[in-house]
């Protein structure tokens, strides 16, 4: 029961803080903002790393490896694209 409260509490607290910070980002930078948060959402890759460290059936291991391909595409692609855009706004 305690873990439910702590997890939901963490989620909503960071949701609130995040919303406040994001609301101060000028519309000028909304595209790179979305690109950056998109890259951050690939943090699920950590879940894949944790799963692969345990003994799992080969079929599941294949799914996890596919997830790692997808998440790293999302992560590296997202950060590279974000940096390309931020660079254009530094004049």
């Amino acid at each position, binding site marked *: 029961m305690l*873990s439910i409260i702590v*997890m939901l509490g*963490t*989620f*909503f607290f*960071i*949701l609130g803080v*995040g*919303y406040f*910070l*994001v609301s101060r980002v000028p*519309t*000028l*930078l*909304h*595209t*790179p*903002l*979305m690109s*950056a*948060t*998109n*890259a*951050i*959402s*690939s*943090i*699920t890759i*950590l*879940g*894949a*790393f*944790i799963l*692969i460290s345990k*003994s*799992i059936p080969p079929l599941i291991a294949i*799914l996890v*490896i*596919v*997830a*790692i391909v*997808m*998440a*790293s*595409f*999302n*992560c*590296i*692609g997202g*950060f*590279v*694209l974000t*940096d*390309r*855009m*931020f*660079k*254009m706004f*530094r*004049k």
Partner: protein
Amino acid sequence: MEFSLEHLAAAIVILLFLGGIALFRSPRTARQGGWLNMLAYAGAVAFVILRYPMLNPAFVLIAILLGGTLGSTLALRVSMLAVPQMIAFQHGCGGVAAFLIAFSEFIREGADLTTLAQVGSVLGMLVGAATFSGSLIAAGKLARKIKQQPVFLPRHSTILCGLLVLIISLSVFTVLQIGLPIAVGSAIGLIVISVTIGVVFTIRVGGADMPVAISFFNATAGFAAAFCGIALSNYLLIGCGACVAASGSLLTIVMCRAMNRSLLGVFAGIRPSIAEPAKLPEEVPIEAGGMEALPFDQAIAALKRAKDIIIVPGYGMALAQAQEQTHSLENWLEQRGARVRYAIHPIAGRMPGHMNVLLAEVEVGYDKLFEMEAINDDFKEADLAIVIGACDVVNPAASTRQGTPISGMPILKAHEANAVIVLNLDEKPGFSGVDNPLYGMKHVIPVWGDAKVNLNALLSSLQE
């Protein structure tokens, strides 16, 4: 539960991510913010790899290299015009990763999962899978690989509600049967239905509403990551998911407000869809519209006379690839001592902030880009407004006519300027299908045709 090293690491990483987002507040510090995010990400990866030594790191390394190479190659090559579909596609990939991880955890732990983790993994599967298919449809529409118009199935809303009821009952069933082989089958069923829901949900959204859809899937990708975090009892995933969900939700709200529409209205396709979307420049011969001598000369005279100018760029400018020419015109005007500013409507591009990126790419200074609220009152003092490839966002009918799809939508008041040059492809209405009374006003000089061709012609006449 006890406080562990893992919780401390999660707290530090989340703080770094939040710090990075805080730096996005100004264009001067934004890039460092991006680097801080990368650092936080790398730190989180290093921590997890050290703490959970992998059984077969070779496969993981190959997977990372494969995904990373593809991702960075595409990200380095994609044109700024195609950024919305690239980001939508990436949302889709994130969705796949989320539902695969939630599914794997659900199957692996089975009945050993706590009830909370079971619910988290089911939600992770559902939201991840729907984000995947919905984002791919959005990417297809943005890239014009799929028809732009909303697609209505017979009894569309009934189908959608039916699918939702089905998925809720199957979710309950899956959780009740956890650990048994049948739960594997029903979990796969859940993913299939969620993918279907993502498709049915998104095909009904029109091309012009994509800024909302893409922001919405940004939020759902964040929620999916947070649900995976609940499934794995991992605070880092929960926190990062919450950051992303916050950003996506905010952008969704901003976009809905910019169009003065409700989220439900956008997704239910409540928009008279009789309108033909604006034609692509490449579908129309460049001669079409023709340049009559008179408006062209009027435009030249107006450009030579004006001292205070506001440029209103629209998506048509980007489709015509006329950003460079627009920037050259701005330079020519400034060399003559005129003041030039850009007025950016929130939905001028295909995703939040898209138009700013398109202009920044051709090195228009960002201090010349103004949001609607900041510049709208200045039109009445401006000598000249130059509308380039924009229609709905400057359509005065939005505030004068009732019952149109854009009624009540805030617009840029270009019509209040002393003179207006319109460099649009033709006089057809924009995405909304509402005729633009601006074109018929006395102080408006319409120069129909391809914006790039016409801007080049204007520039060469001016430079003579």
